[in-house]
């Protein structure tokens, strides 16, 4: 039920934010109860882009269902595909060749950088500056070009399949990634000059939307949003998959728990991803890019669960198999859904203008929430 928009007998004002609002980045609908300018309640109404992906997957085979998942968190398309490939590989005990593992991790980290860059640009735009958006898109564009060459797509890549990757990397891949690394290092100081050190942005983010670590845990908040509160939750560190346990990188933690801490986590996380890419780009082993698998995949009867770290947090894929060619039931534990659930808790008592900073630093992607 959508409440009556207007004034309550107590003099509180009920307004809509979204579903078409620039700061909601898509079709998120929030019904907000205001007392003056102070937020009393935030109530999300979801489903504007709900496609029932879970139901759809029940009639798709283990090779087909991966393609639908690129459309959930479209900014982490590779990582979504990765999670699905991993769960099928776990069920069938497929050994992934070393070359494919390295390519997968490279793609994941490039995706993470691209996703955080888009977030950085749109976050600054939410808070009123248009220029950073162009700076972010300049770097992101060069990642998109790399993706386009190797995967044939810029957004919904569909590159990872059970057993490895769908095709080998493009001959230009290494050269282009190195050019990107150079570009990134040349330009990264601009990010700090434009936004991080900017007093206006700092004032709008510091002390706004504080998440306590125990609340983050209870609400199931994961990813950079939780790490800004000092909660260690990086799946790549806690439950390493592929070759993450052999790589040298840090889990980025901040302790303040406010919007600025979440901002800093993502800025520093980009640098960690760059560090991972640098370690791997010259060390892609020779060999197959895909393991030999049967034409028809059938997961043995049972339950399977895998989790990966997307740019937004912990993505879990839960499959119940009855031994057939399609999943009996599939559940995507999407990071955005849980991260959104804390919004009401942190927004109560703050000013309406601060809501934009909170939503921005939670990094909500609506198709990921609605699925």
């Amino acid at each position, binding site marked *: *039920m959508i409440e009556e928009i207007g004034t309550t007998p107590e003099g509180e004002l009920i307004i809509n934010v979204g579903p078409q609002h620039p700061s909601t980045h898509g079709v998120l609908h929030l019904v907000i109860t205001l007392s003056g300018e102070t937020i009393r309640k935030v109530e999300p109404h*979801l*489903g504007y882009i*709900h496609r029932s992906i879970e139901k759809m997957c029940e009639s798709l085979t283990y090779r087909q269902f991966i393609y639908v998942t690129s459309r959930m968190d479209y900014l982490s398309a590779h990582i979504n595909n990765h999670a699905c490939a991993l769960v099928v590989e776990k069920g069938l005990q497929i050994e992934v060749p070393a070359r494919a593992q390295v390519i997968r991790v490279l793609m994941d980290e490039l995706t993470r950088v691209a996703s955080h860059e888009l977030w950085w640009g749109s976050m600054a735009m939410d808070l009123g500056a248009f220029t950073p958006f162009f700076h972010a898109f300049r770097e992101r564009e060069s990642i998109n070009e790399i993706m386009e060459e190797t995967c044939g797509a810029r957004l919904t890549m569909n590159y990872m399949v059970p057993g490895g990757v769908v095709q080998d990397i493009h001959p230009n891949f290494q050269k282009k990634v190195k050019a990107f690394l150079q570009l990134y290092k040349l330009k990264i100081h601009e990010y700090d000059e434009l936004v991080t050190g900017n007093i206006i942005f700092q004032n709008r983010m510091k002390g706004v939307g504080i998440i306590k670590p125990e609340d983050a845990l209870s609400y*199931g908040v994961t990813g950079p949003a939780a790490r800004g509160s000092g909660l260690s939750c990086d799946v790549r560190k*806690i439950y390493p998959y592929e070759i993450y346990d052999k790589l040298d990188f840090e889990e980025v933690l901040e302790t303040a728990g406010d919007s600025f801490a979440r901002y800093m986590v993502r800025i520093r996380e980009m640098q960690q991803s760059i560090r991972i890419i640098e370690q791997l780009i010259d060390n892609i082993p020779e060999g197959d890019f895909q393991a030999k698998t049967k034409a028809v995949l059938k997961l043995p009867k049972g339950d399977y*669960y895998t989790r990966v770290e997307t740019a937004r947090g*912990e993505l879990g894929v839960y499959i119940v198999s009855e031994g057939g060619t399609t999943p*009996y039931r599939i559940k995507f534990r999407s990071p955005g859904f849980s991260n959104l*659930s804390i919004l009401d808790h942190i927004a109560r008592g703050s000013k309406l203008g601060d809501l934009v900073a909170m939503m921005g630093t939670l990094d909500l992607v609506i198709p990921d929430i609605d699925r």
Partner: protein
Amino acid sequence: MQQEELKIKLSALLPAATFEEGGEWLTMQVEPTDWPALANNLLTEPTLNFNFLFCLTCVDWKTHLTMVYHLSSRTFGHNMVVKVKLDAAKPVIATVSDLWRTAEFHEREVYEMFGVNFLNHPDLRLLILPDGWEGKNPLRKDFVDPINMIKL
């Protein structure tokens, strides 16, 4: 805590529970009436401390529904799964949203998609589906919608 150790501890906590063989994590099957007390113990017992409910969902087995709770302890690093069998015609279970706040949204999703009624839930309403979908549960196996569903 290792799986075996965990199993001993949990069967002492609830002797009526049965354990499922196989699977990656220890899987415990309990009755709906035992669930609220067990859930409370799983969270508050200092040696268990399952403080992170990382997945909450439901599976429709046609004859019955099964609630599936994936729990993890950030303190100790152990994981477990709890399964609760519910009656398909009248599925009712106590909420755990007072213990793990993330359950509030996840239970609302299960409520609309499977029609499970969560007792004492603070705000049990449709979350994703629009008005008028009460009582129609799209993720149930017997759900048919000739307009919106395309069969290949």
